């Protein structure tokens, strides 16, 4: 595979990235500017940064392989769920922004401390996101490293690609702050969109049209066209648990919640919700075509071989280079936001001299990146399923966050130990100390239910108690 085109496209991309970082640094005047991008995002930039943060290599690499392996019901797993996320954004942005304006906002952890009146809430939240975001950053960095290592042999080893990505995103994040990340996200979102559609068009054209593509899939493996898929993955329980975990991402994951807070005004936030919904469909739809193409043409191939072939080797050199840059962009746009958000959350828990806090925050971001890189060296290649574990883990934090945002009279502190217990149970499941299925119900679904029931009962009781007699 030609590295000349990679140098050209990658060089052009790097130039734009440098310009965006320079512009961000020039217009950043305070610590608030640095951490919260001036809190004035418009609709398009807001939607692109939210979309690019939401969609990672998990989308461009994971989803085609998911469609190839498990079939078309993967559309419900992600396409329907991401359309529904737009509704969640619309519902959640108003109370979150109102609460942030009232309590002040440096990060969700800090907001939880203010709302619950105890640092335990913020610390528990931070521990939860640290546990589940670092591995998610790591699998993306590793995935890209493996793919680029296979596609461009003799350039850099797998870990070298991973290290280059981590160093690059650290440089522009540390120099330009959240504004640089937002600008680069917008650029990365557009590259991601372009790359997926170019590859998908080639995949459909290969068969002569959409109908012919589906006929070929039906001949090759008809089980791909219905539930539960060839491997029986898409059961009602799997889809329900996945939807719950993914739908609460804007609530639980700090890099997404922060983007709702830093929109210019409520109108921009609404426009962002609509645009994110459309962007989601535009990004996921082409991965369906790429995956079904792979189901026919690369049925027996390993994940890495399939992706290296369909995304790089079978493309014209210029397209292959654009896709490679798109993959790097996808990985960086999510990883930078997550690492920076972890830094922001830590900052929101710190007190003292602002300059000392910022210095510690910047050092912490580098340490988080180092932890993610170290984890990347030992993590698995199952991008989608590992991402899903990350989503499920952070989803357990949803009641803790929702009470803090929605219950303006002061949320009940008993939610904190309940959440800690649920997190411990989920970790025990991952470690194999608890079974994955209990009495016929998936353990993650059961943990959500066991956590949600007392929380819902508490919310209803408090609402009832707050209602005036006779109302």
């Amino acid at each position, binding site marked *: 595979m030609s590295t000349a085109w990679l140098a050209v496209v990658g060089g052009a991309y790097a130039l734009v990235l440098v310009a965006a970082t320079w512009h961000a640094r020039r217009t950043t005047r305070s610590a608030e500017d640095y951490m919260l991008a001036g809190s004035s995002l418009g609709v398009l930039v807001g939607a692109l940064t939210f979309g690019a943060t939401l969609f990672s290599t998990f989308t461009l690499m994971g989803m085609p392989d998911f469609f190839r392996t498990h079939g078309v019901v993967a559309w419900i797993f992600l396409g329907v769920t991401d359309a529904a996320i737009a509704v969640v954004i619309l519902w959640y942005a108003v109370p979150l922004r109102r609460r942030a304006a009232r309590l002040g906002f440096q990060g969700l952890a800090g907001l939880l401390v203010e709302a619950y009146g105890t640092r335990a809430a913020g610390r528990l939240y931070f521990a939860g996101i640290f546990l589940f975001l670092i591995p998610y950053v790591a699998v993306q960095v590793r995935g890209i490293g493996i793919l680029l290592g296979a596609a461009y042999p003799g350039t850099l080893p797998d870990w070298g690609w991973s290290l280059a990505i981590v160093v690059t995103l650290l440089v522009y994040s540390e120099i330009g702050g959240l504004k640089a990340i937002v600008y680069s996200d917008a650029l990365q979102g557009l590259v991601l969109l372009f790359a997926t559609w170019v590859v998908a068009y080639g995949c459909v054209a290969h068969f002569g049209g959409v109908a012919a593509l*589906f006929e070929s899939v039906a001949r090759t493996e008809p089980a791909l066209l*219905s539930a539960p898929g060839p491997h029986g993955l898409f059961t009602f329980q799997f889809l329900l648990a996945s939807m719950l975990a993914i739908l609460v991402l804007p609530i639980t994951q700090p890099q997404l919640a922060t983007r709702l807070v830093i929109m210019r005004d409520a109108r921009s936030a609404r426009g962002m919700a609509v645009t994110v919904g459309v962007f989601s469909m535009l990004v996921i739809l082409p991965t369906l075509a790429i995956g079904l193409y792979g189901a026919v043409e690369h049925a027996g191939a390993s994940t890495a071989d399939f992706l290296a072939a369909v995304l790089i080797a079978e493309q014209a050199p210029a397209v292959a280079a654009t896709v490679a840059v798109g993959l790097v962009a996808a990985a960086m746009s999510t990883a930078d936001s997550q690492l920076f958000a972890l830094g922001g959350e830590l900052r929101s828990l710190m007190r003292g001299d602002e300059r000392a806090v910022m210095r510690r925050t910047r050092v912490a971001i580098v340490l988080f990146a180092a932890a993610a890189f170290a984890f990347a060296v030992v993590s698995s290649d199952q991008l989608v399923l590992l991402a899903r574990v990350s989503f499920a883990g952070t989803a357990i934090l949803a009641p803790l966050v929702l009470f803090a945002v929605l219950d303006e009279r002061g949320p009940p502190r008993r939610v904190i130990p309940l959440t800690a217990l649920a997190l411990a149970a989920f970790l025990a499941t991952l470690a194999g100390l608890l079974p994955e299925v209990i009495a016929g119900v998936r353990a993650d679904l059961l943990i959500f239910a066991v956590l949600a029931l007392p929380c819902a009962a508490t919310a209803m009781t408090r609402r009832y108690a707050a209602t005036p007699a006779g109302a």
Partner: protein
Amino acid sequence: MTETETDTRVAAATRLWHACLAAAIALVAVSISPWTLAPGALTPTLLGLPRALWVGFVVAGALLVVVVLGAWAQARRERAGAS
């Protein structure tokens, strides 16, 4: 605009917003209903697409319509002065 007219507009926008939320929940429920997820069921097809896929497309498209309507309802509530 009188206070009564404002209240009426806020109430109508609030009803539409709640209807949007209910519709979103119903649509998601349809997408994971036993009919959509019936094992091995390919028919009825729509434009050559198998059942689970076209239902998923229709639900996703309808959710986008719900988002647009919901955003409009929220804007009306805001303009009418609802908190």
